[in-house]
C-alpha cells in the first residue's frame, strides 16, 4: 500500500459516524472495509461498533451490516455465509466483526464452533481490551494490572489477557493473524491475504480506546505502535495452526513495557511489582513466540 495510491472512492466508512474522537476501532474498520470491499457483508455483534454503525435511517458503512445478539457472532456468520452461497453469491466476502467481549468471553463458544467447522468467513476481533461500549468493564482481554470500572482501584484485573491466537491455532484454522492500527500496511496485507483463503480465518486487531484506556485522543497511533514495539502485542500470523511467522518486528531491542503503560490512566497506579510481573510475562511470551517461529520456519 502506498499512501499516494489511496483514493477516497475506495473508502467504505462514511464521515459523520459517532465514534469517540481518536477511536482505534473506527480506524480498524476503515482499513478493513477499504481492503476487503466493495463486495462485502458484515455481521456485527454487540460492541462499540453496534453503535458506531449508526441509528436507522443512517448507516456508517457502504456495505450491508447485519446486527446480531452478543453471543451469536460466530454462528450468525456461519448462517450468512451459507445463506449467501445458497443464493449463488459466492463472491461476497463475509466478515464477522466482534469486540473482545463478543470474541473472548460471551462469544467464545460460537467462535470455537465456527472455527472447528472451518466455516468459510473472516472473523475479525477488534480488541479495545474491555467492555467499552457499556462503560469500561473487565473482559478476559483486559491486560493484567489494568483498572476498569468493575475492577476499580485498589482492585485490578487479576488474570493475564486470554491468548486468543493460541486458541485459534489449536483449532487448526487456515489463517490467523494479529494486526493493529499503527501498521496499516501490515494490516491491509494480511486482510487481503485472508480474503483469498477459503475456510475459517481470524484477525485480532488491537484498537486503542482513549476514554477506556485513559489516554489522550491523539495518542491512539502512538500507543498502538508502542504496543508492538514493547512486544506486548506482536504482529504475526499463524498458518494452519502449525506455522508461525512474524510480520513486523521492532528494530533493535524492544522498548521497556513501562513506557507503554505510563501514559494510560488505566495503568496509572500499577504497583512496580506488578509492572515487573507483566514485563516478565511479556518477555516470556515473546521468547516463546520466537521459539515457535523458529521451530516452524518453512524452507520456502
Amino acid at each position, binding site marked *: 500500500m502506498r*499512501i*499516494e495510491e*489511496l*483514493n*477516497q472512492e475506495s*473508502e467504505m*466508512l*462514511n*464521515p*459523520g*459516524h*459517532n*465514534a469517540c*474522537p*481518536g*477511536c*482505534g476501532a*473506527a*480506524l480498524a474498520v*476503515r482499513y478493513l472495509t477499504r481492503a476487503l470491499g466493495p463486495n462485502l457483508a458484515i455481521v456485527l455483534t454487540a460492541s462499540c461498533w453496534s453503535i458506531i454503525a*449508526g*441509528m*436507522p*435511517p*443512517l*448507516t*456508517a458503512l*457502504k456495505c450491508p451490516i447485519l446486527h446480531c445478539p452478543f453471543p451469536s457472532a460466530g454462528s450468525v456468520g456461519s448462517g450468512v455465509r451459507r445463506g449467501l452461497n445458497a443464493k449463488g453469491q459466492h463472491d461476497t466476502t463475509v466478515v464477522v466483526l466482534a469486540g473482545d467481549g463478543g470474541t473472548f468471553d460471551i462469544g467464545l463458544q460460537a467462535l470455537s464452533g465456527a472455527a472447528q467447522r472451518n466455516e468459510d468467513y473472516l472473523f475479525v476481533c477488534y480488541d479495545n481490551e474491555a467492555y467499552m461500549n457499556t462503560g469500561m468493564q473487565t473482559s478476559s482481554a483486559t491486560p493484567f494490572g489494568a483498572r476498569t470500572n468493575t475492577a476499580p482501584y485498589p482492585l485490578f484485573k487479576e488474570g493475564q489477557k486470554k491468548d486468543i491466537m493460541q486458541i485459534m491455532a489449536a483449532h487448526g484454522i487456515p489463517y490467523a493473524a494479529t494486526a493493529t*492500527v*499503527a501498521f*496499516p500496511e501490515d494490516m491491509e496485507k494480511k486482510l487481503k491475504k485472508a480474503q483469498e483463503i477459503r475456510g475459517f480465518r481470524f484477525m485480532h486487531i488491537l484498537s486503542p480506546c*482513549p476514554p477506556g484506556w485513559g489516554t*489522550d*485522543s*491523539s*495518542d*491512539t*497511533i*502512538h500507543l498502538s*505502535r508502542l504496543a508492538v514495539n514493547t512486544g506486548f502485542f506482536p504482529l504475526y500470523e499463524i498458518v494452519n495452526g502449525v506455522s508461525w511467522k512474524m510480520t513486523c518486528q521492532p528494530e533493535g531491542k524492544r522498548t521497556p513495557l513501562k513506557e507503554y503503560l505510563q501514559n494510560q490512566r488505566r495503568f496509572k497506579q500499577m504497583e512496580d511489582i506488578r509492572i515487573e510481573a507483566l514485563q516478565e510475562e511479556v518477555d516470556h511470551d515473546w521468547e516463546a513466540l520466537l521459539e515457535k517461529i523458529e521451530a516452524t520456519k518453512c524452507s520456502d
Partner: protein
Amino acid sequence: MLPDITTQKPVYAYGTESSAVNKTGEWRFLTPERVPGLSPCRQGCLLDGEVPAWLEAVKREQWEEAWQIMSRNNPFPALTGYTCFHPCTENCNRSELDSGIDIPSVEKAIGLWRLDQYKPGRHRDLLKDEIAVIGSGPAGLSCAYYLNRAGYRVTVYEKSDQIGGMLTLGIPEYRLPRSILNKELNLLKEEGVEFVTGCEIGQDLSLDDLYEKYSEVFLAPGAWKSRKAGIPGEESRGVWNALDFLSEFNSGRQPEVTDPVIVIGGGNAAIDSARSALRMNGINHVTLVYRRSRAEMPAYQPEVEAAENEGVELIFNALPGKIETVDGKISGAEFNYSKTNRQGLAVDKTSSFHKSCGTLIMALGQEQDSSIFSSLEKDVSFYAGGDLVTGPATVSEAIRAGRIAAEAMIARLENLPEPELCLPLEDPVSFEDLYLEASVNLDIKDQQEMPEKEASRCLGCGTCNSCGICYLFCPDMAIDIVDGRYELNMDYCKGCGICYRECPSRALVLKGGK
C-alpha cells in the same frame, strides 16, 4: 387468492442513508490547523524561497503550481539552480537521516520546465506606467520581470553590448550553460521587457533624462570597478583584472593568455578565473595564490574543491609583493608570506618566493562605482539594489533585491501598503522536532535522479508536504484528497488530534475552540 403480501415492505429496522448528514465537527473543542513553521532550508534561502512548498508541488507533478510558488520569490530558477550556492541544501534536515535533498536539481528542473513549456505571453499593459531599470544583471532582470508581470512597461538600459551582467560576463559557461541563460533572457524579451544595449547611464543618457521619461527608475548597475593591488607592475601587459578577463572569456572572445597562469585572490571570481583559464587552449598550469588560509576563503568551497580536482595549484597565506616584467610584459612575480593576526594581515617581508608566469589575473574584488550618481541633479529618492548597494555579493541576493524593489515600486504606484520584508524571527524546525515514527516517505533512500522522486524525499520540516499520513490515520474521514493535497474537513473533524500528533513535518497545531 389473498393479496401478495411478499410485495409489501417488511417493517424492520434498517438504515440506508449515509451518516454523512451528521456533522460531527460540532463536537470539537480543539481544532487542527496547518500553521507553517520555519523550515531550515527556507531560513537559509537567499531569496526567501518557499522551498518545501515547491518541492511538494513537484512531488505531485504539478509543475505549473511549482512554478507559481517558485516565481513568487525567484523568477529564474534555471539560473539560480546553476549559480546559487544553496545554503538551503546545507541546512537540510534530511541529511541527518540518509542524505539531504538535492534541492538544486529540483530547482533546475522547475526552471527548465518553465523555459521549455510555459509560455504565458506578453504582459505589457499600455495603460500602465513606464519604468526604467539600469543594469541588466540579475538584480535588474529580476526587477524587470516582476514589474513586467504586473503589467508595467519596463525598459532595461545596459552599458555593454550583451545583456545579463555578471551572468553573462562574470560567470563561466561550465558554471552556467550559455544555452540556458540565453533562453531565459529571450523569454524575458518575449514577455515584453525591452532592452537598450550599449547605453551607459551617466554617459549616453543622464539620470535626469530617465527621471523625465519614466515614472520610476531602478538602479542596478552592479559593482564593476576592479580593485587594485597597488603594487608596481600592475599595469604591465599580461596582467588582467578578473572581471575583464572573465568578460572576454565569457563573450566567446579568446583573451590573450599565456601559460603558466597565476590568479591572485580567494573569492569566486578568482576561482572562476582559474578554472576558466585552465580550460583555454595552451594553458596547462594555473596557480591560485590567496593571502589568507583556505578556511578563510570567501569562495564557495565546492568550487574550490572542483578547482583543486581539475588541477589548479592552491597556495595560501601569500601575496604578491612585486611584479616582474620583460619588455613590458609580465614574466613572473615575487610573493611574501602572510598571516592573519589580530590587527588584520601581517606580511613577512623577509620570506619570499618567486613564481614565473605568462599571465597574472588579479581577482581582488570589485567596488561600486558611484559616479553614476554624479550625473543626477534633481533631488529625488530612488530605488537601487544588487552589488551597487551591497558590494560584490551573489546572484541570488541580487535577484531578491530586484524583486523587493519591484514590489515596493508597485505598492507606491498603486497606493498599496508597503510589502513586508522579513521572515518571522523563530527557530527553524530541527531534525529532532520531526516525528518520523510513521516511516512513510522514508522508504526512498538516497538522492534520486527523477525530480519528482527526489522532491518526495523532502520531510516538510514545518510545512505540509502532502505525505498523506494525516489522511491515513484519520478515524473520522475528515480529510479530503483534493488534487493530491490533503484538506482538513471541518464539518466532520472531531478534534481528536491524531493528525497533529502523527504529522512527520510538524505542520499542524491544535488550537482551542472550533
